[in-house]
């Protein structure tokens, strides 16, 4: 039985593994190889060097990386704070409304991200939904909040809300009510219950939620392009430009590698600390 299980395990993982090799590992290898080619070449048949990486420092690309990571960090913190009460309510308080919320949030994910961001442009622009109606009722207009750092962070929070909300709700659902009750009976106040029971027991959900939102936000480009009017250039935007207008694959690859290494290290660190069987509700 055990041996059969082993064999079936390998066999059934095979199709997915094939996809990964063809469409994830091989392309990554190509990026890795291109990143050590001299700048502006389109073939791998050149003498390798690390010039493309030095461009990261000499041409100020590190600034984009700092912006990306900084905005991702801030939006993750905001997301954690605004999602917590809702995730808590979804896990412990709401009954049927949890289903309604889940459906509503999941369905919003199916609408292309750029349509939703474009919708915010129409909502927030001068003469848009908010300002336009406000002016027609009161006679006063106001400046549009578009095209700045604040609105980019708003966009990140808006787009990545589901990626924080669902893991968080799942994590909070794993906190046993008995533990909270017992703590309260023993005289713990609200904050003590929160810091000593809720937070540590919901940690796997918090880790996954923060990780997902941070990583996705760090690689984001559409928010700064559509809402931010490129007030800030993100690192993913730089990568895109290096490949398209710049026609410089090695530099694009080197920038990609830097982003991939940062994100990969974070993701591996987080994922290795989490038991997926437990989060996804395995019995036994």
């Amino acid at each position, binding site marked *: 039985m055990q041996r059969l299980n*082993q064999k079936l395990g390998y066999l059934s993982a095979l199709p997915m593994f094939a996809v990964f090799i063809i469409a994830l590992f091989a392309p990554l290898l190509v990026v890795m190889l291109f990143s050590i080619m001299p700048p502006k070449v389109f073939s791998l048949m050149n003498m390798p060097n690390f010039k493309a990486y030095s461009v990261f420092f000499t041409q100020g690309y590190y600034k984009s990386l700092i912006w990306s990571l900084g905005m991702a960090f801030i939006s993750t913190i905001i997301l954690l704070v605004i999602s917590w009460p809702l995730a808590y309510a979804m896990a412990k308080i709401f009954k049927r409304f949890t289903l309604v919320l889940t459906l509503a949030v999941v369905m919003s994910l199916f609408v292309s991200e750029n349509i939703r961001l474009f919708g915010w442009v129409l909502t927030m622009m001068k003469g848009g939904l908010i300002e336009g109606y406000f002016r027609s009722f009161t006679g006063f207009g106001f400046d549009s909040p578009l095209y700045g750092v604040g609105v980019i962070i708003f966009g990140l929070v808006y787009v990545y*809300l589901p990626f924080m909300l669902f893991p968080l709700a799942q994590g909070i659902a794993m906190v046993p009510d008995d533990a909270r009750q017992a703590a309260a009976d023993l005289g713990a106040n609200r904050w003590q219950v929160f810091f000593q029971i809720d937070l540590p027991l919901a940690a796997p959900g918090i880790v996954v939620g923060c990780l997902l939102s941070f990583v996705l936000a760090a690689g984001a480009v559409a928010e700064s392009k559509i809402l931010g009017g490129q007030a800030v250039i993100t690192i993913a935007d730089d990568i895109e430009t290096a490949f398209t207008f710049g026609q410089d694959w090695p530099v694009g690859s080197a920038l990609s590698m830097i982003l991939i290494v940062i994100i990969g290290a974070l993701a591996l660190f987080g994922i290795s600390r989490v038991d997926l069987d437990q989060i996804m509700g395995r019995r036994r």
Partner: protein
Amino acid sequence: MPASSTTKFILFVYGILVIFLLYLPLLSVGFASISKARYLTFPIKRYSSKWYFEAMNSGTVRDLLLTSFSVAIIVTVLSVIIAFFGALAFARYEWRYRSAFQKLILLPIFFPQTVLGLALLMWFNALGIIPSWKTAVVAHLVWIAPIATLIVAIRAYSFDPALEEAARDMGASTFTILREITLPLLMPGLISAGLFAFLLSWGNFPLSLFTTGADSTLPEWLYAKMVSGYSPLVPTLGITSVIASLVLILVFFTSAWLIKIIRERNVTSS
């Protein structure tokens, strides 16, 4: 500690507010799509459906819809097949590298999609493949198949392995077990995974951007127009894409509901 009714009410209002904000931008797009003016300003003075007619009669739009649909449908079929086996390896069989496999599956979800698209573009180029909508299928697949696997895995966790073991004890072969026990038990998960796969592929933009070559999917076209200046067709096609997703979701829920009713009727009559 049961929450007080005031807390409950506040949280409920908060939830409603979040849903409202999630859909507010779509409301704006919806209004914009039926505005008659070529250059949009709110409040909208005259409404008309002319942009929808214009979109319907346009050959470009037909091509866009067809490309998006072809990619999505192929991605759906392949993802469901991969996810069926993937979920068993993820959740059901006890094998040596199960926990490594579980972590591997999450990798593409964490990966920045734009970068993945570019990496695939270079890889196809190195292989000498000219990108078209078919290469976009590969790009979508590496991101969507893992998500589909996770969805099926949730279902696979909830079924009792004793059912399969019983069948094996009675002499059923592995193939028979898969067909007669595992497949029907996982079916609801597979159908949801298929729905997710289709919708995610239909709406995906960052992966398509660099991998479709000369072809263009609907989200790509929308993006190009958004960045290069306003076209009144952008809100119209945006809403068309949303409505297509909505219709699919409605069909899905109605048929699930009908199947449930028919099943219940059969149980009571027999």
